[in-house]
């Protein structure tokens, strides 16, 4: 149907979160997305070579863009920073430096391609998960495979607070700007200092209020909620696994 609309294009992190909550595959079972994302990662690790890497990257990028309707431009933007590091790393295979200067190393080309193909594919796998699955769903999944309850609850509250604090900081920043707090570098520095100094007590106050709010709903030390159950399509899971097996096989044959 329609593609995802990004409403508050502030920081990339916030957009990633919005997409994770609003993409077309938001309501597919976690296990299906894990199979796609982590499955791809497994394939890349299991079958070295740039062919496998390329196939996995293409498959997951296509899934993200056509399936989950992640805007292609945004996907590229998210990928470009890690990709930059990968390319820089690969350059070390292609050139060597000695007393006579910089030399091109022909034998390093294959290694460089393999490195780029594999690392980029691994990045795509992780980004695919991050863009299609909210952090809280991932936490929920980890909880099911044995993450202790307390750790999961702290992570959940931290996640919630991160957004509140980010919002508070953004509002304070806007309020300072509205009263000309940022016109000179000196004032900007002062304002930043005040902002940071104010965030901590506010976060504490927030936490205190949150405790009152939770207690009012009979909180007994455990944050239990009723998650909406998403039916797992085992057909899709099987199709994904079969797809990855094909990629593994193709990678082996074509290498």
């Amino acid at each position: 149907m329609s593609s995802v609309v990004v409403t508050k294009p502030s920081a990339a992190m916030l957009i990633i979160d919005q997409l994770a909550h609003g993409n077309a595959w938001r309501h597919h079972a976690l296990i299906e997305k894990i199979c796609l994302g982590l499955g791809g990662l497994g394939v890349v690790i299991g079958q070295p070579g740039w062919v496998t890497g390329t196939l996995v990257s293409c498959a997951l990028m296509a899934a993200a863009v056509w399936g989950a309707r992640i805007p292609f431009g945004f996907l590229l933007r998210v990928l470009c920073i890690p990709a930059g590091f990968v390319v820089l790393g690969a350059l070390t295979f292609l050139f060597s430096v000695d007393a006579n200067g910089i030399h091109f190393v022909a034998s390093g080309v294959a290694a460089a391609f393999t490195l780029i193909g594999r690392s980029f594919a691994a990045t795509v796998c992780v980004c695919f998960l991050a863009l299609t699955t909210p952090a809280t769903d991932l936490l929920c999944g980890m909880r099911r495979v044995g993450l202790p309850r307390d750790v999961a609850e702290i992570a959940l509250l931290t996640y919630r607070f991160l957004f509140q604090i980010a919002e508070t900081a953004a509002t304070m920043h806007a309020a300072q700007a509205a009263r000309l707090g940022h016109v000179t570098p000196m004032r900007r520095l002062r304002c930043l200092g005040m902002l940071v100094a104010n965030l901590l007590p506010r976060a504490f106050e927030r936490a205190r209020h949150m405790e009152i709010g939770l207690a009012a709903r009979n909180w007994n030390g455990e944050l239990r909620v009723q998650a909406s159950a998403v039916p797992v399509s085992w057909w899709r899971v099987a199709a994904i696994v079969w797809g990855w097996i094909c990629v593994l096989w193709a990678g082996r044959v074509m290498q």
Partner: protein
Amino acid sequence: MGLDLCTVGGKGDAVSMIVAEALHYAYPGGGDALAGLSLTVKRGRRLAILGPNGAGKTTLLLHLNGSLRPAQGRVLLDGVEAAYSRTALAAWRRRVGLVLQDADDQLFASSVAEDVSFGPLNLELPPDQVRDRVDAALHAMGISALAEKAPHMLSFGQKKRVAIAGALAMQPEVLLLDEPTAGLDYLGTRQLLEALGALAETTLVFTTHDAGLALAFADEVALFAQGRVIAQGDAQTVLSDANAMKQASLEVPFVARLAARLQGLGLPAQHLRTEEDVLAVLAAHPLAVDQISVSGAV
């Protein structure tokens, strides 16, 4: 466990459900937030609390569900002095729900439906019933479509509705709401009042700065100033009391002033609460319009 709190009526005054007696409270490092405040919440009625900023309205609500403990004075539930042990507090909050002024202080879960399910699950209800309660509460607040959204992606008014749904889903006997309509749009306010109006059995206590809303919706009004109640009684009587209203830095609502005028003209205007009521009287007595304008500005 906590059965003493759950018996309905029982000994003591059957009408007064929660009684605050001469409460004193000061925040650490602050002056008196409550200075000998006394107030009665009657069963099945709607009590509006009005007063200027800093008068102690929020502080009182936090006392009425045991979130704060008075330095002096006491809170009675059905005539029994409230205790502050863990079990007593749990039983207290089972009966008395609270919605905070800032919804962000209350929402923690990763989706709206999950957040609303938190209270019912703490009541140890079976999963089916929890689901029904969540659906009903979301429907009542007109936010069924937001069920799967993350709280941090909602607008201020939407979060407010989620917070109220979270309390509604617990179906408490008494619901304390701190400025429930502040920040809601016209439709949101109407929906909220409708949803609250449908809770015939539930005792409501809400704070507001909107005297007109209090007149239209509340049975009773308590006026606060400087940590004390300066008047409590029937909504129309208290809100028409120009002296008391002035003490609480409030204005007599337009409808109340108009009603007083109409009554002065000998018209049946004792029970006018909304603009619609006034229009109905004026429609029945067209001549009154001229008389009102002759007798000066309202």
